[in-house]
């Protein structure tokens, strides 16, 4: 599974209150949530991500609240994968369950610049940016099957 796109870059400790504020949590509609993704820190995010992007971030991306809408909003806004130094546990699981590839890539926040094209091999975790190749933690096994199906619901529908 290969995903590719221009980099949108953020810092450390991007929390889920920032990814999708609580006032939007009474909905699970992807199209609605997408319009408000990252709103508190980047009100233009919805436009900037709409053509398909690779989101690059620092430590514990997605920390905080368990709201699954955080993963839904990013994916629906056009995020094809999130590459981060590390992920918060709940967000990581939510992303996989919603078919959004999430790859832990040590050094990514130093190596990647805004606008560069990043190419990610999900299984191996290999990330290519310009001339450089970084080695991340690939997704395999059951999690990969869920991702390839597009999410846990789609996966369950396929296997049952």
């Amino acid at each position, binding site marked *: 599974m290969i995903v590719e796109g221009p980099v949108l870059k953020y810092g450390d400790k991007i929390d889920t209150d920032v990814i999708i504020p609580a006032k939007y949590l009474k909905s699970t509609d992807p199209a609605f949530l997408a319009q408000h993704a990252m709103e508190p820190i980047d009100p233009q995010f919805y436009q900037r991500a709409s053509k398909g992007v690779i989101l690059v971030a620092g430590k514990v991306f997605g920390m905080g609240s*368990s709201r699954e809408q955080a993963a839904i909003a990013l994916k629906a806004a056009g995020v094809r994968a999130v590459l981060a130094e590390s992920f918060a546990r709940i967000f990581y699981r939510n992303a996989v369950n919603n078919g959004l590839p999430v790859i832990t890539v040590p050094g990514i926040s130093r190596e990647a610049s805004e606008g560069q094209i990043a190419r990610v091999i999900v299984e191996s975790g290999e990330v290519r940016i310009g001339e450089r190749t970084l080695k991340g933690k690939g997704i395999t096994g059951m999690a990969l099957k869920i991702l390839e199906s597009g999410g846990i619901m789609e996966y369950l529908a396929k296997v049952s």
Partner: protein
Amino acid sequence: MGYTLTEKILGRAAGRPVSPGEVTELKVDLVAFHDLTGYHVIEVMEKAGMSKIFDQERLVVAFDHLSPPPDPRSAEIQVSIRKFVRKMGVKNFHDNNVGILHQLMVEKYAEPGQVILAADSHTTTSGALGAFAQGMGASDIAAAVVTGRTWMTVPEPFKVSLKGAPGKWIGGKDVALKLLGEFKADYFNGKSIEVHVEDPHSFPVDYRATVSNMGIEMNADALMFVPDAETVRFIKENRGYEPKVITPDRDASYQEAYDLELNKLEPLVAVPHSVDNVKGASELEDVEVDQVFIGSCTNGRLSDFEVASKILKGKKVRTRTIAIPASYEQFKKAMDLGYIKDLVDSGCVVTYGTCGPCLGGHFGVAGPGETVLSTSSRNFKGRMGSPDAKVYLSGPAVAAATALTGKITDPRGVQ
């Protein structure tokens, strides 16, 4: 070599010995959700055609985030969950008049050694009683509601020892903020924190619940207090029976350990917009505050109201102050002991067991340009309302002292 608490609990739940780093399937003892995540859990179940629950006795549902409903959509969400509860025969359902889910888990349900999952990140709170408790998203919880099982990566146990006794005005929040300031928010990612208390009764369950609650802010997989005489006292006093206790082996080995001297702690504050940006309250005394919030599943318990009433009794607040006990049980006790009257007389707005403004819900959200001092758990940008508001976090003593002066105040200086 002996087992840690993490290995013992997860090994029992997996039905075989487990080691840190391995992925395992395991049985879950209790599953829970509240209104704001519950409708999403139910939606996932319905879409997947999952029409049963694993055990009517072991699912806990409580209304807290949208309680009482501030708008028609919130009311609609609650209506749909009540329907689900009736249809499935859920035995442990708490409507708008009971309190915050995590507080109810501590009061009524959680026991030492259990594995507890809920659709909310602050599920870690039940670690106060020695349960391995963690939050998950709606899809993972839907699967657990149906099967009574989940999967997880076994975390690396980290030992924290609390030595001595806390000084005046020092409580659970200062311990949580000390750990966050010292280690930062990413350090415990993939680890479970096991807290050993040297003198059990010096650090009561109320304080422990605050620390466990903020285990998620440390990004720990779980934050558990090793069950001891205080754990047994709490459950016996609140529920009338003595729980079975599970503890780590004496020769359990921890890769890392940290000793915290309780008597050396000072009142601490987390500064915007990060939980690990921690300073002494005394360093922040020029910060003017527009609103104080005392409450939430972090610090809305009886001991928090006791501290607030000691500081506010017979005085008037200078800053608008909202106080919300974490549950009806806490509210009633605080009323019987006169704390609620003290707070109302001092000019606080006091209302009942709900999450309130903690997540920018209702009962006092922050406006643009406002500064809030809150006893809740998160000061992320936009968390309590406007993204242009600033949120400082502290325990109840700093909050009450700040309410009196209108500026962040070290309670040790209050007469």
